[in-house]
């Protein structure tokens, strides 16, 4: 008896790339919860997220743009608007799937409450991904609509922007939630923002073409998710370059597909013990 009691059991960790136990309807229930709460609080939440890309558009586009002639044949404000739309989508989900999800998981015990119902933690994770995507769609698309009022849209391909923004949103939701599922303390988000989000914002070809950078930096830029998002949005709103759009969309779809189950399995590993 005591021999059996002292046997060390190897705790089997959830495999990272297994097929998660998800049901879309259950994930949708969590989406509905988030939407219900968002409806209550959006008046306070929406402003900071929303205005930041606009400040950049106005300051850089009109302020800096006044000193520049043309960039790759475009007015400066037209050049930077698509990248700022991609950024608005990225921010729209990133705050949600990092800080908000961590607080819900760790302090509010919202996931524990949901896991006492027919929902699994994987349903919860999928619900968060869908909700993050929804927020990206709201912030990114509204940015596109308002920016269009400034005359920055120059191609009919703009009708595909909702699909593109949703893809961008899902990609950043997957990346952000993966990080959230791993970190032990909320303070670690500093790394995510200062070492991932901010450098991407600066070097993804939003404000200047990456073709002007040294070769190694161009290679690094190609691997940045935001760079591909910028390429996609620029093709769909400014250049009308179908080939560039398809390439960027394929890159985004491939990365999203590769990582998709990771946050769900990591959440399972963290919360089902």
């Amino acid at each position, binding site marked *: 008896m005591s021999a059996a009691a002292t046997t060390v*059991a190897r705790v089997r960790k959830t495999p990272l790339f297994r097929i998660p136990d998800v049901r879309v309807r259950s994930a949708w*229930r969590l989406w509905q919860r988030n939407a219900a709460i968002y409806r209550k609080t959006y008046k306070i939440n929406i402003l900071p997220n929303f205005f930041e890309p606009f400040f950049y558009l106005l300051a850089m586009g009109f302020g800096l743009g006044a000193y520049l002639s043309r960039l790759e044949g475009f007015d400066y404000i037209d050049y930077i608007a698509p990248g700022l739309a991609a950024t608005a989508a990225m921010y729209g989900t990133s705050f949600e799937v990092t800080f908000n999800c961590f607080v819900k998981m760790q302090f509010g015990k919202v996931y*524990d409450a949901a*896991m*006492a*119902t027919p929902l699994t933690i994987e349903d919860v994770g999928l619900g968060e991904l869908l909700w993050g995507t929804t927020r990206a769609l709201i912030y990114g698309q509204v940015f596109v609509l308002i920016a269009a009022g400034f005359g920055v849209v120059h191609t009919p391909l703009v009708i595909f922007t909702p699909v593109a923004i949703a893809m961008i949103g899902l990609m950043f939701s997957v990346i952000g939630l993966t990080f959230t599922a791993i970190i032990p303390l909320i303070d670690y988000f500093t790394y995510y923002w200062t070492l991932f989000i901010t450098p991407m914002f600066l070097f993804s070809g939003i404000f200047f073409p990456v073709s002007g950078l040294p070769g190694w930096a161009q290679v690094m830029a190609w691997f940045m998710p935001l760079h591909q998002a910028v390429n996609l949005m620029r093709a769909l709103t400014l250049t009308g370059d179908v080939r560039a759009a398809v390439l960027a969309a394929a890159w985004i779809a491939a990365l999203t597909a590769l990582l998709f189950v990771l946050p769900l399995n990591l959440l399972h590993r963290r919360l089902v013990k």
Partner: protein
Amino acid sequence: MSVVVARDLTKRFGEFEAVRGVDFDVRERECFGFLGPNGAGKTTTMRMISCTSPPTSGELSVLSLPSNRGRDIRRRMGVVPQENNLDEEVTVVENLLIYARYFDIPRREARSAAEELLHFVALQDKRDWRIDRLSGGMKRRLLIARALVNEPDLLILDEPTTGLDPQARHLVWEKLRSLKRQGVTLVLTTHYMDEAAQLCDRLVIMHEGRILVEGSPRELVARETSPQVIEVFEPDEGAAQGLRDLAELAERVERLADRWLFYTAEGDALLAKVRGVVPDPGAVWLRGATLEDVFLQLTGRGLLE
């Protein structure tokens, strides 16, 4: 008919064995309690029953389903957690409606169930309050209401009255008894002996991951300890000498920092003798044994953490 059946149920976290091969049966329509000091394995056992923590080994079936059918089991189960996990941003009634969605309950049904449940837990006047305005007792009642939104056959409660004032505790007990009358099976953990004695038809006392004893509160008191206890408060040196001579007349004597306890079946006879050696009549009294005596006898009096 058993609602929960556990055989040799074990849970390990790395090298730590939280639950060490326990067996128990929870019968339909009863209130079953898990008692034990902190770290005894109660909460881990409850988490396995509510299918949020897979057993390491052993057998566990809940509502006639194996415990790996978590979704189907939880659909018919309600869980009242130890920690408040209500949605703070929305109102009382919205908390119930959001939770009802998790069970795929149609909107209209959820609305009428929510109003009914708010009446049941006496929160109908607070239906549009935000959660941060509620007292601890109100939050607990709302958690109970939320756990009932799917009309569960089995209700799991982890320390349902910890941190509540006496009025709030009695209100919660009354609600739980009324649920039992309606046919809901209750499983709860507590470390309040009076709570267990008030509510539980049967209970187990757990200690260090094992079940020590099982039975009704009355059975346990009758079986595990003597029926009466004489307490002597802070005897002086002379009285202590006299008490030592009386010790063999008791079934068991326990010496604590501030008092002596004599466990006996013949309280009146021994009381007279004790009074003979202790001059202060206010320092000696006779009482019936309680579940608390059984609990402390089995799990020890030292601080366990």
